[in-house]
């Protein structure tokens, strides 16, 4: 199960955070800073998996943004990497060459897209065309 998804930039500012477990605000902030510190200190040739508290962080860097998923130990890390990549590709297709600003100005849309891919901590849909179709339909509703 995915416990939370974070998208942060190199400076540690969170551009997107989705929590599938109930944490208080203070805890959330603390986790965000800790994860950032952990990931930022790693070199690029290191593995994309780190143990953090009693979960695993699976992360990947896309340009200036870190996409991180915090999952259970028993989850398949390579598959999580693929899931992150799928999400990024969907964003890219939707926004057309997505950049950080897109995420900032259209955060509510990003959340909707996220909710079309992941629900309840599991991946829901794996087909890009289906997802994008869905979002378009939702956008065109009154």
């Amino acid at each position, binding site marked *: 199960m995915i416990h939370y998804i974070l998208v942060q930039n190199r400076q540690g500012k*969170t551009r997107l*955070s989705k*929590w*599938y477990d*109930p*944490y*208080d*605000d203070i805890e959330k*902030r603390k986790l965000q800073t800790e994860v950032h510190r952990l990931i930022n200190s*790693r*070199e690029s*040739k*290191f*593995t*994309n*998996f*780190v*143990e953090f508290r009693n979960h695993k962080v699976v992360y990947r860097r896309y340009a200036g943004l870190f996409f991180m998923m915090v999952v259970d130990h028993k989850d*398949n*890390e*390579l*598959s999580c*990497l*693929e*899931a992150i990549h*799928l999400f990024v590709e969907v964003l890219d297709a939707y926004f057309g060459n997505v950049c950080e600003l897109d995420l*900032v*100005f259209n*955060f*509510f849309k990003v*959340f*909707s897209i996220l*909710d079309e891919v992941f*629900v*309840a*901590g*599991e*991946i*829901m*849909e*794996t*087909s*890009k*065309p*289906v997802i994008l179709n*869905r979002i378009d*339909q*939702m956008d065109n*509703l*009154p």
Partner: protein
Amino acid sequence: MASKLRDLIKVVRSCKTAAEERAVVAKECASIRTYFKDDDTDNRHRNVAKLLYIHMLGYSTHFGQMECLKLIVSQHYTDKRIGYLGLMLLLDEKQEVLMLATHSIKNDLNHPNQFVAGLALCSLGNISSQGMARDCAPEVEKLLASSNSYIRKKAALCAIRISRKAPDLMENFVTRTKTLLTERNHGVLLTGVSLMIELCEMSHETIVYYRKQQVVPVLVRLLKNLVLSGYAPEHDVSGITDPFLQVKILRLLRLLGKGDPESSDQMNDILAQVATNTESTKNVGNSILYESVQTIMAIESEGGLKVMAINILGRFLLNRDNNIRYVALNTLSKVVSSDLQAVQRHRNTIVDCLKDPDVSIRRRALDLIYSLVNESNIRILVRELLNFLLISDAQFRPELVAKLCMVTEKYSPSKRWHVDTILRVMSIGGAFVPDDVPNNLIGLISANTELQSYAVQKLYLAITQDSQHQHLLQVGLWCVGEFGDLLVATDKPNDAKGDDENISISVSEVDVLNLIEAVLRDPLTTTSTKQYGLTALMKLTSRFSTQHVQRIKNTIDTYKSSIHVELQQRSCEYSQLFKWDQIRPGVLDRMPAYEKGENDMIGEVAAPTTTSSAPAPSSAATDLLGGMDMFDTRPGQPNNNRSAQPQIPAQPVQSGLDLLADIFGPSPTTSAPAPTLAPTSSYKPPAAQPSNNSVNLLGDLLGDTLAPTPSSSSMPLGADLPIAAAPAPSIAQNPNPSSASTPQLITINGYNKNGIIINFDATKPPGQAHLTAINAVTTNSNNFPIQNYSIQAAVPKHLKIQIAPASGNVVPGGNGGKVTQVIRIANSMQGQKAIVLRVKIDYTANGTPVTDTIDVSFPPSL
């Protein structure tokens, strides 16, 4: 007209300082609050969107929660959209406001518009609390059978959440999942399999149910289609069709096949196919291979398949991509228990991973190495581990040190190597060394005479270089004190069989004394280490030349007024000992070999103790008894480890008057010395007693002082021949039920010399054939009384002995009176071996002290 979200974002981003941003946000919040108060419906979604942005910046926005609820009930889709988003961002299951949304969510679940229903399902799946889950469960169930695949897949994931929050509702979903598997829509398939995985992980009955429902063949067929199907543009990732679904199916197969040969059989083919056909050039392929390897190793697969799986892992290990190596190490540590040989083949690669700059890989490699160590590779691996310990960070150290010690004790190829390695570990990892390791090391050294010279030199060097680590100091001080004479000897034995190190250092007595005094003075030395130091100094008085005695005496005297009771006590007692020059050498003579065997014997009597149950009481008791190093041959806790074979202790070194020698000496019948007195007269609770007499604990402690008692710690050494004399029997009343009520069985005359006659009357308590009570009756036919009379007894290993205090220590002359003493014996080999005793008799006749030793054997029929 409220400002647009976009404008707000622009303004916030253009702020130069944090204070400016706060001001902007505060102003906006105030404006939003006014709008909310005015109950403005048109702009509500815009305002909430702005509020959500402010929330994402990190400001508190709780006043917006109710607005989200209002938005949810609106009829406009845009309103609902923002409302649900707000709900998911601002609320979570811990907040009670969420309950208010339950009703609206329920309504929306039944909404004809699929998107609305989708929104509701989504929110329910992400943040529902237990109450909400129960409330909405029936709706979700209904939606699982909806005609719309979009709804179905969301409902399936929602069901996962409900099952997690309210496990008793799980059963409702189990029956429906099977239909989900017949879907064609990948999304529904994926979520259906996820749901099944979750249900299987939550309860084992589900697994059994699914097996009965023949789910496995269905899954196998699904997987086959995926693997063999041609290009499917919709779900393709780098040439592989829907890898996520494949991985999920493999995971479900793992759960279903584990422990069930029949299901595993059905999977064998497809697993082999997946393992061979999947391309491993890209991450996608590797993720599928990874999952399939995990599945193969977990289920009851056939041998060939397992070999294939391990080969795949081996290939992963050599991959340049760190991710793959990490994954391989992770899986190998899980399979090492089932297939050690195959993993050993990759040992070198794993050792190389220890040096990898990435900490994740190092940690995985370390875990794996622990499980790989055995006799053949221990030297190499320990060397690597020691190197690693030198450079490792703090998070690895405690575990690494503990594991190193454990592994050394289990598999060390030679004693010298053992000593060396533990020394190195202690000097590098000092603080984390577990408590029994130094004690075991002492035991090992004391048991092996050939090691002693070598060990003491090494330890001396170690202490001079590094006086920080307490454990190292303690072991070092003990050895220097004990074997100080070997250390300063001018002709050191040259061990031809030494490894590469054949040290021969020249140390003078003054050096040693300086060192010990420096350690004592060092403020960083702990009290317990100082105790060791004092004791070591004391021992050196008999080992070093007499010119240093005064110096040592002065050093010890300085602690007479120490605030630490232990140090003060030792100092006072040792100072007193200086007055007793004739017995001092004997008292301070070599310690007999520390036998771990004894402790196991206690274990046998009390309860079979293992290393893990090495009880805290015994270490606590060791501390309580403080530095009774002189008398206590059992400084540590019982240890399962028998690697240090106890040998006949260094008897030849001991002088004639040595009170300890006879007691711990080799017993007549057995080869291994068995200072069985020590175990019984110990601080162990009465459970350790062979007989069922309820002797009080004190009685145990003090009553057996005839056996030289380690436990009589409070007895000052200045007392009258402390070991020999029986203390005031008033404290320790050993009830003697046996001697009064049982018939006398046999009497043996043990001793008849110089007018002293000792008779041993043996009786047995009724019904307990293995117990014998021997009453030693001493009479004196001389015309003068004998004073300071005492006897001590030792028995071989198969017997346990308990000596009660004597009735007195003066035997009046002319057979005028007698001294009696009860000795209780428990024979663990009753019927097979007879009772034998070696008795040492001390007395003063007419001012001359006399000592004698006799062996007493009872007939085997007893």
